[in-house]
């Protein structure tokens, strides 16, 4: 067992266990915390795969922003229904969907990628056959890839982000107006 393999197995056990906790814990804030653990463990897997930039961006965006936003929303929407667990009606369907999803994915992935060895030590060729300046996955190489081959996608993404920003403002702003009208109509309730 190489050290990477040991680290990977620990991380994968952590990932799966905490992901199961996210789905199964009845307490929503605990679910958010387990989600943090899962995301951190996946970031660790990225590090094992030498994708350094993606790993830290994962911690920065997901752990630092997305889950904090989720927690924020959880605190804003504290309702008595927040502790209810699964809907029993859905369970057989969910079990079927889960098994079939995992079955299909596992079969396809393992049969398609059997015997492919990940070389985590050597420096593979840079994309486009350019000179490999540094390790694949660091800031420089990812930046070059984004701003040469993927620049159109990058621009589209920034438009998406802008649209999301405006959309969020519109959605939450309109509701505030309606709330005010309701409050004006109904008085203090």
């Amino acid at each position: 067992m190489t050290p990477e393999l040991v680290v990977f197995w620990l991380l994968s056990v952590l990932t799966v266990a905490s992901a199961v906790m996210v789905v199964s814990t009845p307490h929503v804030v605990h679910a958010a915390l387990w989600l943090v653990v899962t995301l951190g463990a996946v970031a660790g897997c990225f590090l094992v795969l030498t994708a350094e930039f993606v790993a830290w961006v994962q911690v920065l965006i997901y752990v630092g922003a997305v889950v904090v936003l989720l927690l924020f929303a959880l605190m804003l929407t504290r309702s008595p229904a927040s502790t209810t667990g699964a809907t029993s009606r859905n369970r057989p369907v969910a079990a079927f969907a889960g098994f079939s999803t995992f079955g299909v994915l596992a079969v396809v992935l393992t049969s398609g990628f059997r015997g492919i060895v990940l070389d985590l030590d050597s420096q593979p060729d840079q994309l486009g056959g350019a000179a490999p300046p540094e390790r694949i996955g660091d800031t420089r190489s990812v930046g070059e890839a984004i701003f040469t081959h993927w620049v159109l996608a990058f621009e589209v993404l920034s438009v998406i982000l802008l649209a999301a920003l405006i959309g969020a403002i519109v959605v939450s702003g309109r509701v505030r107006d309606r709330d005010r009208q309701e409050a004006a109509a109904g008085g203090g309730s």
Partner: protein
Amino acid sequence: MDATPFLTLSALLFTIGAVGVLVRRNAIVVFMCVELMLNATNLALVTFARVHGQLDGQVAAFFVMVVAAAEVVVGLAIIVSIFRARRSISVDDASLLKY
């Protein structure tokens, strides 16, 4: 090191997320499960990047994260506005298109 453990982990994570989306009622938890699924695909993408020795997979994973951030922003705005309208964030309750 083999590529299959990573891909199996990814498949497992995706499955857990999918089951979570199906069984949980709280809209925010459903959101978390969607994040789990997105992360599973990211893991697969980064693994593919490593398999091929190319960066495209990592770039795609990066893009997925950005889209996920955008999705969370809009989704949470919607969830909070639904909560304001009817004091519940259970996805089963949100079955009407208006109010």
